[in-house]
């Protein structure tokens, strides 16, 4: 085995690439949950994004249309969820689960004609600079636009929630919809917007999988990543920076366990396979021990329906 500094750079780069869909979907869901809405349909929205992106890319040949189309598809399917939970006041958990089942089913139906078609090459930036800096070269350069966007997103999200007025409104709606409503904030409108934003990010996460990471369509290709994204939001205690850490640990252990197998480390393979799940939870629980901070960042009205009496 060759251990040199570039080899480590390569491994870190592949870990980051595998973390991208988790970061995107989690940061989207984080905004939704911060507004007090629990949307368990992430997996369903992701798979819809995956098939929409792939189908649009194949049909129109345009990557830009495909990426934005996938986000739009995520928005459309989350509109169903928003209408049901916000306008018809249905239960968040049941509706979210239904959304996932619906997404998996309808993506399979649309996808029938797209099985067995190779994807297109997605443009990457600064490919030539990869070898200019040791270690950092492969980490910083030669990635797609979605990759860079995903790694900026947690910081933007954090800034948005902490420092902007709209961020404050979102948090207010999530913590106490009644007070927010009394202040003249349209709770339903804010929640609609947050749900739709979550849908767009999940759609983008799905499109990343079907267009960039493994350019192809097969049924169920998200493989449960939506559920992991959901878990990351909770275990990070609704903190976007911790989502980034959690996604990197999860992606990292998935990849490192394959390396350990290939080197021939004599640890039961089943244990190695379970490792990413176990360690991610432990680490996030440990770094989020401060109960005061948890209370502060947990949206108090999470999953509760808001019905304005008038």
């Amino acid at each position, binding site marked *: *085995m*060759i251990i040199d500094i570039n*080899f480590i750079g*390569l*491994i870190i780069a*592949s870990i980051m690439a*595998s973390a991208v869909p988790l970061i995107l979907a989690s940061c989207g869901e984080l905004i939704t949950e911060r507004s007090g809405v629990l949307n368990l349909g992430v997996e369903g929205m992701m798979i819809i994004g995956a098939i929409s992106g792939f189908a649009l890319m194949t049909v129109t040949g345009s990557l830009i249309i495909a990426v934005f189309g996938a986000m739009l598809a995520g928005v459309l399917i989350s509109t169903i969820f928003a209408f049901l939970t916000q306008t018809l006041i249905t239960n968040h958990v049941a509706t979210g689960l239904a959304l996932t089942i619906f997404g998996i089913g309808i993506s*399979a139906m649309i*996808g*029938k004609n797209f*099985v*067995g078609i*190779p994807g297109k090459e997605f443009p990457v930036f600064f490919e030539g600079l990869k070898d200019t800096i040791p270690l950092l070269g492969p980490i910083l350069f030669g990635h797609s636009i979605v990759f860079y966007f995903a790694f900026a997103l947690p910081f933007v999200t954090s800034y948005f929630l902490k420092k902007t007025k709209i961020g404050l409104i979102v948090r207010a709606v999530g913590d106490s919809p009644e007070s927010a409503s009394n202040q003249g904030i349209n709770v339903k409108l804010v929640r609609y917007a947050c749900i739709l934003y979550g849908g767009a990010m999940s759609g983008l996460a799905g499109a990343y*999988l079907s267009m960039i*990471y*493994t*350019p*192809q*369509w*097969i*049924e*169920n*290709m998200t*493989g449960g*990543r939506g559920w992991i994204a959901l878990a990351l939001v909770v275990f990070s205690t609704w903190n976007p920076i911790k989502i980034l850490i959690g996604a990197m640990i999860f992606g990292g252990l*998935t*990849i490192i366990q*394959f*390396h350990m*197998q*290939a*080197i*021939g480390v*004599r640890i*039961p*393979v*089943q244990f190695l*396979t379970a490792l990413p799940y176990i360690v991610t939870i432990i680490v996030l629980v440990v770094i989020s021990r401060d109960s005061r901070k948890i209370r502060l960042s947990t949206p108090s009205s999470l999953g509760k329906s808001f019905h304005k009496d008038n």
Partner: protein
Amino acid sequence: MHKFLIRSFVSSLVLLFTFTVAAVAKDVKAAFVYIGPTGDHGWTYQHDVGRKAVEAAGFKTTYVEGVPESADAERVLRQLANSGHDVIFTTSFGYMNPTNKVAKEFPNVKFEHATGYKREHPNVSTYAARFYEGRTILGTIAGTMTKSNVIGYVASFPIPEVIRGINSFTLAAQKVNPNIKTKIVWAFTWYDPGKEAEAAKALIDQGADVIAQHTDSTAIVQMAEKAGVYAFGQASDMDKFAPKAVLTSVENNWGPYYVDRVKAVANGTWSQKDTWHGIGDGMVVISDLDSQMPADLRSKVKKLQADLASGKVHSFTGPIYDQKGNLMVAEGKTADDGMLAGMMTYVKGVEGDIPK
């Protein structure tokens, strides 16, 4: 408009023809039960290609996809048997007991179970393919084409089918290149493109320059293409997904068998059989050999393919030793089908342990 008219005329002719043939064939109806979705572009997809061949031969077919290997399977089978199907193909190992159970209740319906070994009633046949013969060919190519002498192998689950494949592949590779090492990574999934790609990437980062796979998606050959190493297609011809990386593919070709068996039902000549077909009978097909392979390798592979088909060469010819050096197959002997069916030990030269 002209074209449209011609097209509709032709398609109605085809339809008419199909109906006529179906009428001649006494309206035999065949049903297929699938473990996965037909859109997996792997195991189930290839069975469905076989089903379409039956349809093209003029028979009516139905299929049920995503049937769990549980009591659900029994329910689905009973329903299919009840609704006038004459022959039912159950295409996953786990349908073994449900198939035999329901077969007892419907003695007039024929049952065909893939990859199993139980034929408890006269109306149950079993069939499987000798994919390991294909892997002998892949091993020969891999052993010749590798420069780093490290060959990566992404495996799914530790069952005899997969172990047999790893062994057959490694034996063939060692024969042409005694210095090679086969590194195995278990993905513990049949298809999850993301995971498979990550497994392949790990093997490539560790120096493997040829990647073989026993999982179903095309993510591995795509990863190989990106990294500039060689790979082999699994279940279907994956060349178009990675034109530079894919040297050849081992295709599962169920169509001819399915057509044969449905025709036998129609003619009344169906009888119980245990089929284990390989390259010779066309159930295992080797796709076109890539022109990147040197000409002498290509002709060597062609000859090996012909010898495997005729039975002149067997994938497991002694002397074969296991990892500890114990003799598995004596010199001049070949492994019998019983040994192949239950193979759960690595041969010498494979690295690591089989996950327990």
